[in-house]
């Protein structure tokens, strides 16, 4: 089986599906030995798992000689278990990989370099997606180790009914019209309701103190021009800056001083899978969270709207940072060509469009952001009013620099620990930021 043939046919089928045609089944002519592949994903929401399984069924129908076994592994230890399995030779052929783990997996020689064979595929990706999947080696050459299918960005979902009741105007969705932090705080105060006995019965906002590896902290730091790393992500520098301080102090103030955000309860609570139930039961007016939450919120009874993060007034960018996961191939896979077919299928619009329609993901292919293609995935019943203004933001989004870090597990834990000390143990801002810098540097071996 000629690699070039495989890749160009896969490309052709992809472009064909972009325009709505069904994928050509030219392969059926040749005869193949049966091949069995294993695919690993982390525990996903019910809907996501079903979509993945449906996609796999379609794939197996298109390529009848390939059978795919779909195995889910609990999210908490997904990457460590994946790494162990791959390194001991019993790993899956194709698997999900969080972009931040890419560096560590590449260093451990576990990922297949698909730069050449995925060339046509990657050229159609959005800028952020392309940045996510490519890595630069010492010679400055760019290599591709995975394919991705989506982008997820930081937004604020809000409860329209609570906004109306408090007389707050809808949150801006145009990048130029974003609220300033002060305007945001003012509106959150209007949305916070305290009863006669002093109990807060409704909070303005929540989830700003989420863990470092998610969205809020990194986005706010970026918006305020506080970059914690040097250019090639080998060292931390300038962490203890006025801009960093401004960000973390303002986040803490929402809960500790202004009382507009509730106690997050269970430090280390992980909203990477489910937006807090408090929002879903109408006790919090807004939630700062990744855009993936749209799927679950759309299925709830909340009359919801969306808005962009407020700005500190210092940024000159025109988009936020996005993240998502990649599909990678095991360098030791016994069936690399079939594995590539599967990885490409799982990253194709054919597979992605039904999921984009639920609001879980935003597309990663540039073509899908073009006017005539948007209706294919823009489900009016799910995407709230104003979301069309977010489309150019997603298109121009940049990749998170932390996607290029190594030793991410240790770094995330260290940053989370220091931030928790700041949020919940009265450690002052300067000490926190200095500790973060020295700990990251010692982890990175500086």
């Amino acid at each position, binding site marked *: 089986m000629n690699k070039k043939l495989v890749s160009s046919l896969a490309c052709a089928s992809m472009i064909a599906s972009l325009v709505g045609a069904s994928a050509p089944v030219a392969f059926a002519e040749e005869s193949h030995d049966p091949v069995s592949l294993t695919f690993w994903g982390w525990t996903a929401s019910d809907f996501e798992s079903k979509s993945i399984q449906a996609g796999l069924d379609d794939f197996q129908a298109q390529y009848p000689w390939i059978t795919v076994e779909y195995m889910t592994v609990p999210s908490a230890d997904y990457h460590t278990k994946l790494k162990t399995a791959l390194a001991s030779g019993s790993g899956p052929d194709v698997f999900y990989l969080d972009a931040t783990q890419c560096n560590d997996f590449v260093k451990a020689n576990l990922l297949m370099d698909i730069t050449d064979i995925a060339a046509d595929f990657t050229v159609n990706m959005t800028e952020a997606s392309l940045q996510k999947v490519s890595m630069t080696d010492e010679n400055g050459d760019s290599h591709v180790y995975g394919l991705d299918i989506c982008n997820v960005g930081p937004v604020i979902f809000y409860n329209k009914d609570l906004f109306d009741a408090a007389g707050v105007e809808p949150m801006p969705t145009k990048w130029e019209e974003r609220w300033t932090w002060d305007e945001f705080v003012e509106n959150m105060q209007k949305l916070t309701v305290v009863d006669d006995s002093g109990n807060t019965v409704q909070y303005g906002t929540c989830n700003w103190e989420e863990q470092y590896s998610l969205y809020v902290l990194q986005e706010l730091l970026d918006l305020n021009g506080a970059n914690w790393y040097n250019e090639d992500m080998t060292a931390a520098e300038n962490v203890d800056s006025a801009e960093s301080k401004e960000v973390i102090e303002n986040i803490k103030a929402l809960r500790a001083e202004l009382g507009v955000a509730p106690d997050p309860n269970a430090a280390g*609570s992980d909203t990477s899978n*489910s937006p807090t*139930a408090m929002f*879903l*039961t109408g006790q919090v007016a807004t939630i700062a969270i990744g855009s993936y939450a749209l799927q679950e919120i759309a299925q709830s009874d909340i009359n919801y709207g969306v808005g962009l993060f407020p700005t500190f007034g210092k940024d000159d960018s025109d988009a936020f940072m996005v993240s998502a996961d990649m599909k990678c191939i095991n360098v030791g896979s016994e069936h690399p060509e079939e594995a590539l077919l599967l990885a490409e299928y799982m990253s194709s619009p054919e597979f992605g469009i039904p999921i984009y329609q639920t609001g879980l993901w935003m597309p990663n292919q540039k073509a899908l952001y073009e006017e005539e293609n948007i209706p294919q995935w823009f489900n009016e019943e799910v995407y709230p009013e104003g979301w069309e203004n977010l489309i150019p933001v997603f298109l121009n989004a940049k990749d998170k620099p932390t996607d290029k870090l190594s030793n991410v597990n240790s770094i995330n834990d260290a940053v989370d620990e220091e931030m928790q000390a700041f949020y919940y143990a009265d450690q002052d801002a300067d000490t926190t930021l200095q500790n973060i810098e020295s700990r990251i540097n010692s982890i990175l071996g500086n």
Partner: protein
Amino acid sequence: MKRKTKQKMIKTVSVVVLLFGAVIMLVPFLWMLSTSFKNIADVFKYPPSFFGSEFRWQNYVDVFQTINFLGMLKNTVLVTVAVCVGQLVTSAMAGFAFSYLQFPGRDLIFKIFLFAVMIPFHVMLIPTFVLMRNLKLLNSLWALILPCIVSPLGAFMMKQSYLGIPRSLGEAAAIDGCSPWKIMWVIYFPLSKPTLATLAIFSFMQTWNDFIRPLIFLNSNTKVTLTLGLYNMVGSYATNWGLLMAAVILSILPVLILYLCLQDFFVEGIAMTGLKG
């Protein structure tokens, strides 16, 4: 006169204290039960109340749909039964050797077993993990079963139990031509039922409720046990308390039923360990 009223006072105080304590022991379970029937709006209602606006049985149904509860139950049962039976058999056999048979090195080997009882479990986690990886047994239930099949404490307990059985029984059978194998299984084993029951109960409880080993050795969602499954649920459904409580109740139910049926064995067993330990 004075002493009798003093006695009465002590008794009343005791009852009051015990009742107070019993309430503290039971309220969390009652609260768990009440939350499991609430819908999400009632869960986040303040002030909290025992009853929600409706009786939401759907939570229990949802448990079976969101997590692979029956699969987890099956895995847990398989591992627990295997470990239980394994420990009973190996301990009984070893205990017999230590108590009835005479052979060179008997005391030394027994001392090694005693020493093994004192080793804290966490020291052995990493090498066992590496061993299982090398044997390609990671993510299989065998990784949970094999390391636990032998219980040095069990061997000790069975030895003590057999020492309490008159040696003459065995010797009489030996004269009749019985091999030690037969002597053990036909005579001694049945006579040690109380100790066996205790051992079985401890083995069962420890394996059923084990968390750290499934966490380390199991990968995929089809292989998880109840404890690991609950832990993963908390990760994914962190704030859906109604659903979580329903899952917790379902996972406690099998053990609860067992306990209610065999309550006396439990009590006897604990009493025995405390006195002999």
